């Protein structure tokens, strides 16, 4: 009998408090599968954010610490100085990373910190009950945009991957999605690549993971996956935005020429 799929030993057996169908569980598992397959569990340190995944350390079977809201990249910076050879990741939501923690993530990229950030973009503040995030789509209803996000009042959503890709120190930037088994397979490959690049100490790695929040979107898990495909992906295009060896400054120079 061949094993097609067994729950990775990178995860504890602790049952999660996530809502039914929440993709945080998938993202967690993929990271830990990759680390397990690369035999890095014993070398890994992770940081859970303030957000629904605040208890990620309960589920992931590696050394971990909690971060104050938004500060995980600064904490990672400190950890990497002490253990330059460890495998280090932050796991952050869109409120945590793209709002309160903007400065920390930009400057981790700026310094070319040698760790990997898994950025879970579910277009909403999950933990606090569904407020607008910087990645909330125009028209999307949240508890602080009850008529739908207005471009006039709140602007258009931030595309973090694109922004981070303008920073020299961010050597690997890619956006993936978790909406289907095939997307999940692709995502896992990207995760693996990011960890490999970290091992080579080339610079900062950033993976934006399009995710769902069935509870605060007010949709069933299945409908949430569909909404992700039909609404999020068109605005947040999947793909690689930066990889080692890309011409310096993919974006700016070109525009500077105008």
């Amino acid at each position, binding site marked *: 009998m061949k094993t097609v799929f067994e729950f990775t030993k990178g995860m504890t057996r602790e049952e999660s408090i996530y809502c*039914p169908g929440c993709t945080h569980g998938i993202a967690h598992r993929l990271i830990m599968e990759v680390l397990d397959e690369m035999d890095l569990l014993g070398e890994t340190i992770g940081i859970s954010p303030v957000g629904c995944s605040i208890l990620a350390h309960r589920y992931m079977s590696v050394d971990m610490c909690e971060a104050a809201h938004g500060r995980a990249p600064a904490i990672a910076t400190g950890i990497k100085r002490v253990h330059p050879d460890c495998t280090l990741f932050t796991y952050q939501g869109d409120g945590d990373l793209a709002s309160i923690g903007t400065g920390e993530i930009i400057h981790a990229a700026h310094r070319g910190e040698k760790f990997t950030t898994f950025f879970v973009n579910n277009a909403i503040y999950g933990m606090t009950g569904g407020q607008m995030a910087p990645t909330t789509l125009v028209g999307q209803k949240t508890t602080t945009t009850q008529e739908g996000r207005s471009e006039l009042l709140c602007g258009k959503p931030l595309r973090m991957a694109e922004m981070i890709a303008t920073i020299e120190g961010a050597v690997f930037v890619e956006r993936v999605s978790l909406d289907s088994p095939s997307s999940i397979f692709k995502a896992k490959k990207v995760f693996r690549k990011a960890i490999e690049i970290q091992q080579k100490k080339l610079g900062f790695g950033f993976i934006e993971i399009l995710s769902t929040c069935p509870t605060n979107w007010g949709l069933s898990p299945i409908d949430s996956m569909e909404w992700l495909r039909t609404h999020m992906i068109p605005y947040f295009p999947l793909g690689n935005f930066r990889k080692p060896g890309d011409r310096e400054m993919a974006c700016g120079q070109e525009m500077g020429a105008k």
Partner: protein
Amino acid sequence: MGRGLVKFDDERCKGCELCVSVCPVKIIRIDQTKINTKGYHAAGTQEIEKCIGCGNCATICPDGAISVYIK
């Protein structure tokens, strides 16, 4: 195509139905009669003999409730 074997861990299942939606042979159902200690109706297979062991269900399960084998 081989013959798949799928195991569900009822206690971990939250009845989200994501596995249901990705099974190519549509053999997964939520069992409305079973209820686990967390209060959820858990997923399970009907006609397991149709399973092709693709692993889709386990891949998308957010709660690690599924294992897949090929006999």
